[in-house]
């Protein structure tokens, strides 16, 4: 594989837009870089300027100050036609096209290279087929776009971006509106594409759990601190992540490097057992305000075994249940 390159380099960038005659600055002094062959995820709360940043990087809207270098050249110096061969986008806006097949849509991705009438030649056809097979929707190639599910349509748009043969792909919330398995599939697909094609893939998302697990680099965007970047692991080590989502009810679990919902615990119960059974009981009880652990001393003892769950009160067996639902009923009664 080729060496990682700084494909997009941002220096002291200010983004925002003009409202009437005043200028509304959304974010200032951003300095960072996006590398080829990597999946970079942009995380941030609603309204923090993720879309504005993406729009600035696609040259859809002018930057306020600073510099954006795409492959070493300032973005404003590229004519539209050249940018079309450099950056492709997948947007959130839903396509309302009827009577167009997936293949025709992906074919439109070749527009920057086709001639006056937009006809595809043999080479274009081959690239279109390849793009479709890369996102694994060959079976959908002749389906009409308006009959696809949200996830399938999203994949078709990614295939369009691939057919555009750009070194950079920018995606605005590609996992929004998808069900959970599709979200995972989408992220894995993008991650895999960044590896196999050595493309620079940059996306904004609200699915932070997934991003933290799959992304190579994370960009955290927030009002007070601007943008912090790094691998998810580095950001978790230096406390950026826990600081970033420091809100009531959310805990950044340093052990797993993931987030969990904070529960208020007002009772402690001793729990013995091992493996998944132990963790699952712990999780269920924690949701109900009970801290269950081996380290705790209490009158009540729960034994999680392969056969079921045994509850002891002051050393005496008070009941046996076969699943957690019944256990909860017994404990909370």
């Amino acid at each position, binding site marked *: 594989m080729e060496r990682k390159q700084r494909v997009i380099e941002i220096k002291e960038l200010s983004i925002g837009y003009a409202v009437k005659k005043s200028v509304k600055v959304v974010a200032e002094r951003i300095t960072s870089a996006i590398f080829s062959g990597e999946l970079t995820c942009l995380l941030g709360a609603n309204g923090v300027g993720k879309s504005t940043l993406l729009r600035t990087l696609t040259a859809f809207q002018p930057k306020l100050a600073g510099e954006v270098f795409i492959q070493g050249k300032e973005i404003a110096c590229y004519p*539209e036609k050249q*940018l*079309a061969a450099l950056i492709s*986008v997948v947007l959130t806006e839903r396509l309302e096209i009827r009577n167009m097949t997936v293949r025709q849509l992906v074919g*439109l991705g070749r527009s920057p290279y086709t001639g006056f009438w*937009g006809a595809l030649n043999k080479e274009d056809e081959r690239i279109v087929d390849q793009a479709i097979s890369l996102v694994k929707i060959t079976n959908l190639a002749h389906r009409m776009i308006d009959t696809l599910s949200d996830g399938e349509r999203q994949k078709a748009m990614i295939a369009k971006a691939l057919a555009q043969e750009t070194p950079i792909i920018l995606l605005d919330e590609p996992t929004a509106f998808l069900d959970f398995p599709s979200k995972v599939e989408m992220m894995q697909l993008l991650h895999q594409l960044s590896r196999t094609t050595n493309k620079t893939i940059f996306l904004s998302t609200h699915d932070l759990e997934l991003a933290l697990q799959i992304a190579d680099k994370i960009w955290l965007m927030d009002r007070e601190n601007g943008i912090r970047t790094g691998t998810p692991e580095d950001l978790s080590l230096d406390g950026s992540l826990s600081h970033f989502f420091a809100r009531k009810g959310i805990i950044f679990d340093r052990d797993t490097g993931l987030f969990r919902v904070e529960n208020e615990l007002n009772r402690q119960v001793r729990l013995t057992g091992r493996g998944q059974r132990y963790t699952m009981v712990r999780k269920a009880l924690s949701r109900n305000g009970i801290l269950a652990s081996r380290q705790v001393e209490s009158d009540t003892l729960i034994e999680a075994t392969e056969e079921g769950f045994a509850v002891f009160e002051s050393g005496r067996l008070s009941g046996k249940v076969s699943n957690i639902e019944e256990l909860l009923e017994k404990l909370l009664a």
Partner: protein
Amino acid sequence: MKRHALSFILIFLSIILFFVLNLVLGTISIPLSSIWHVLWGGEDASEIWQNIIWKSRFPQTVTALVAGAGLSISGLQMQTVFRNPLAGPSELGISSGAGLGVAFIILLSGSIGGTALSKLGLFGEVAVSVAAIGGAMVVMSVIIAISQRVKGNVVLLIMGVMIGYIATAVIGVLKFFSNEEDVRAYVIWGLGSFSKVSGGQVYTFAGIMAVLIPLSFLLIKTLNLMLLGEGYARNLGLNIKRARLYVITCSCVITAMITAYCGPVVFLGLAVPHLCRAIFVSSDHRILVPAVTLTGASLALLCNLIARMPGFEGALPINSVTALIGAPVVISVLFGKRKSEIS
């Protein structure tokens, strides 16, 4: 592809059929062979027949053919640019603009100039055409100016509709101050007709359209990209402002010319693109643009034929016929859309 070719051939044959029927059918029956002779410059046919064909039926048929094609292309362009299935030449206020221009000429000539324009003959006809083009151009410039400033296409469409309302209101005021004869002349113009273009004018009209229609074919790739919406189109290297300017200008000029010569003809521009999408099951403008050109021509010829059917004797306004055929098409499109949205 085979299916498309077949559809194209069938539509083309229907044009020829309707063209011939338009020449043959009428209050005075002329045998087909005589029509053939007259068309190819034979001298043996009677002078009355020659007059009927060259001064009435032939110009009317050619006008219908060309106007139908032009309006349909204009409608398709509007629907793609505004990404709105209900956009059409009359929806953007272009027709109203032309109507306003004509209203100024027809209605004010009586009350200011002292003579009713309808009595001026050829000069009057030219004045009406110029006024219609002028009015349409004014509205068009306003729309284009707005299109360069506002972002959303829906806003632009609503502005068009509003301009249409204003034009209609001004026309209403003008009517109030005009004499009866002029109002009647204006109302007749407003009904729309393919028969107003006289034998000499038809060549000018067909000539203009022969330039404008091929010009709109040059915008096919642009239109295909615009299907994807502004974001994607821009990302694929399209200069969206310039593209919008070209397509709207092209569409407006075509509509203005046709409205000037035929009066406002409704529904063809709206219905034909929908009909073609249904027939060809495609959104690709490389297929749709030629398809609407041919289908529009064919449908306009058919409408003209129905309007002139024995019994109506030319009394049936063309707009009634286009509406009767066009409205069901639009309704069926709306129903089809609803169904796909539910499932």
